[in-house]
């Protein structure tokens, strides 16, 4: 059990925003918490799982997690769902109507916006959901505030019977800062579900009378936001420029302009227009510093308040001091100078697939087969789009690969007539939102070859469990989905379901060739664990016998980070053409002994000097 579980009131800790949310949920008496992993929110549930008083789970997707939380709330329990910003899109169908019906037990949705896209496909601003769904938003600026605001959010949620959004960003979730605990857990037993069809069955007839109630609630929040202590003014002696800001941008403003007056918004939706108007009168120029869209700025302009904002500041990315200084200093008539040595021109170091990664085999195959359109998905395997595979052609959203591939098949242009359409998706993404696409494809007689890369983890977010791994959030045994049976149940013919060991390169190349020739949906399922998880067994490393290496470079095409070029030579072929030879070496510290590269080496120059230990590599019999 985690040390924090026993940490007493008034103790001080260095905590990430995500850890602070977990502690706050525990103190607030939360009884149910659910999430699907997603950077930067993943650790919220991992930390909550350490508090035994809270039922917590990995749900299969964000919509499910919010619905689990809604059900718990209706049962009278305080409940929390956490997700990254794009998860809100998935979950929105549920909360957009629950906001109308309202809640019983406090219901808080913690959403983490990946401002700056450290690990996301877009940079959307979750503050719109509060406006869209008539839900209040609290925006913490650091761990201490995350700790305090999550508890306030539960109180507000129950008082006004509304789901409350706590909007975090990467720079709150993953920053460690001081937190002083105010209390310990207060148990809040569930009141029990009170049947009330007119309230909870959202048919048109029942939903319609809720609309005026929702707007009355909005009005109460417009009054509350003017007086609530979460919206506070920080006095400043230099009134030339005043700032309105929220979230971590507040910290950046204070850092950069310590003498400027600041109206710091913690309760940001709806915004306190009267308070802002009064603040505007106290400063020469009012600047809105908001990440990321000009949302508040637009609302203030509509309210007739003269502000500046995105005319000075970038419309995307973090508003760090290094961004604020050059944007604002000219307003003050001050020069902005930085004194440092010039930025050195150093090669990029992009993330890549790991040594022994079970995705290496499939991408080796895909990069060696011509005439494929490869429709990708969200996960580590998105890295297949990069060097050296260049074998992934699209990536947009969770589960999109199968449905997009189906659409590309149906909408084929002339130039694609001879091409095969391939979809690549991982185990967890398939269960999240991909299997509906497969069902749709089968039902509508599509023709796509699906590579279902089952590495038994949610790899990119750090190896979390899912219904395909056989373990739950707590590491306890859980029913494990059988992908072959599932795919067959969705209607793929058994002949077209192929199990393959992704380390068996010739087999996987052969299978992809065979299946892409078929004129019906087929699914190739790999089954090797992610090499960063405990399920992976590390074996003794391989090495290259230099005298035997012919410089063909085949093993380098695998893209394994343990293999690198030892030297290059130019030779002349029998036909008189010049040819570059690339000789390989294997880094013994990085190699994990998976033997994939051995399969690429015709001259048998790759050997394992030490025996592969007593652990035997399991070879799948199905292929």
């Amino acid at each position: 059990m985690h040390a924090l579980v026993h940490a007493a009131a008034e103790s001080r800790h260095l905590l990430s925003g995500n850890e602070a949310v977990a502690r706050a949920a525990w103190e607030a008496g939360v009884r149910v918490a659910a999430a699907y992993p997603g950077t930067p929110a993943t650790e919220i549930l991992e930390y909550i799982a350490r508090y035994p008083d809270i039922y917590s789970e990995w749900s299969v997707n964000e919509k499910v997690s919010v619905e689990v939380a809604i059900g718990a709330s209706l049962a009278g329990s305080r409940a929390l769902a956490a997700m990254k910003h794009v998860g809100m899109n998935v979950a929105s169908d549920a909360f957009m109507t629950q906001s109308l019906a309202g809640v019983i037990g406090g219901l808080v949705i913690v959403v983490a916006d990946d401002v700056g896209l450290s690990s996301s496909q877009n940079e959307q601003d979750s503050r719109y959901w509060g406006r869209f769904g008539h839900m209040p938003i609290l925006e913490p600026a650091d761990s201490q505030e995350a700790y305090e605001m999550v508890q306030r959010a539960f109180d507000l949620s129950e008082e006004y019977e509304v789901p409350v959004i706590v909007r975090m960003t990467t720079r709150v979730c993953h920053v460690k800062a001081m937190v002083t605990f105010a209390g310990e857990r207060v148990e809040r037993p569930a009141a029990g579900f009170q049947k009330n069809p007119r309230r909870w069955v959202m048919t048109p007839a029942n939903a319609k009378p809720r609309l005026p109630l929702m707007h009355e609630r909005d009005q109460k929040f417009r009054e509350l936001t003017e007086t609530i202590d979460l919206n506070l003014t920080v006095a400043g002696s230099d009134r030339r420029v005043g700032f309105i800001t929220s979230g971590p941008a507040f910290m950046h403003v204070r850092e950069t302009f310590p003498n400027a007056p600041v109206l710091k918004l913690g309760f940001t939706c709806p915004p306190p227009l009267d308070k802002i108007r009064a603040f505007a009168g106290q400063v020469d120029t009012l600047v809105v510093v908001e990440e990321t869209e000009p949302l508040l700025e637009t609302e203030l302009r509509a309210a007739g308040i003269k502000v500046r904002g995105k005319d000075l500041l970038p419309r995307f990315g973090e508003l760090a001091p290094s961004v604020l200084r050059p944007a604002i200093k000219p307003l003050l008539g001050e020069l902005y100078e930085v004194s440092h040595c010039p930025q050195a021109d150093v090669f990029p170091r992009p993330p890549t697939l790991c040594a022994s990664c079970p995705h290496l085999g499939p991408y080796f195959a895909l990069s060696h087969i011509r005439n494929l359109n490869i429709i990708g998905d969200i996960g580590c395997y998105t890295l297949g789009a990069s060097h050296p595979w260049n074998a992934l052609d699209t990536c947009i959203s969770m589960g999109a690969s199968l449905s997009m591939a189906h659409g590309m098949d149906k909408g084929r242009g002339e130039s694609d007539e001879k091409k095969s359409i391939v979809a690549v998706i991982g185990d967890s993404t398939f269960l999240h939102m991909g299997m509906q696409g497969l069902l749709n494809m089968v039902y509508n007689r599509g023709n796509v070859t699906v590579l279902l890369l089952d590495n038994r983890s949610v790899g990119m977010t750090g190896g979390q469990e899912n219904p395909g791994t056989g373990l739950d959030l707590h590491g306890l045994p859980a029913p494990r989905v059988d992908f072959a049976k599932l795919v067959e149940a969705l209607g793929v013919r058994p002949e077209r379901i192929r199990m393959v060991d992704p380390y068996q390169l010739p087999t996987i190349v052969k299978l992809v060739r065979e299946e892409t020739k078929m004129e019906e949906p087929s699914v190739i399922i790999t089954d090797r664990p992610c090499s960063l998880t405990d399920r992976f067994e590390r074996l003794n490393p391989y090495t290259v016998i230099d005298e035997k290496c012919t410089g063909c470079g085949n093993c380098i095409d695998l893209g394994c980070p343990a293999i690198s070029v030892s030297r290059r030579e130019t030779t002349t072929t029998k036909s008189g053409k010049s040819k570059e030879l690339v000789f390989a070496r294997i880094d013994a510290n990085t190699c994990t002994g998976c033997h994939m590269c051995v399969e690429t080496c015709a001259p048998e120059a790759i050997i394992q000097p030490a025996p592969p230990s007593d652990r035997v590599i399991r070879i799948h019999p199905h292929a």
Partner: protein
Amino acid sequence: MRDGITNLLVVGIGGQGVMTAAEMLARTALSQGYDVKKTEVAGMAQRGGVVSSHVRFGPKVYSPQIDPGEADLLIGFEAAEALRWASHLRPTGVAMVNTLRLAPPIVSAGLYDYPADPIGALAATGLEVHAFDAGAIAEELGNAKLVNTIMLGAISDYLPFPAAALEECIVAGFRAYKPKLAEINARAFAAGRAAGHQKLTNP
């Protein structure tokens, strides 16, 4: 140091222990009574990407991020990474660099070049550069994983708190969770501390 704030930037590659080193520095600063903030961008760092960890401490810290030209100390776990982040150092700052060279696959494939002499390029900027082979020391001590503690030892005399405070934070952690490794880490810290004094002269 400005406004009593110390800015430490720890950089390297995923898996090298950069984040652990930053955590040790943050905890030690906390034990010394400072307000502390620590942040990193390491979304996909486990997959061979760049990791940079910012540690800021002082009487009151607002932003967790260190701007270009604001770091007091740069701790580079790899030579090219240290060069990449050199512009984050203030002109009076100190760079403590492990001379390890780790070329990523795209360099090995010939798409980019690894700098011929990243340490020399660092020194040529006029910054105070200390460089040594932490891996060799770790190997001598018999455990490659000691690089982290060696690097922390190396910078321990350039911090606004006593080296012993940092050493105690590291060794106490081992005593509590992996007591067998406490003694060897204390030795690694001492070896790093001695090595960290090797200052390069500006060529």
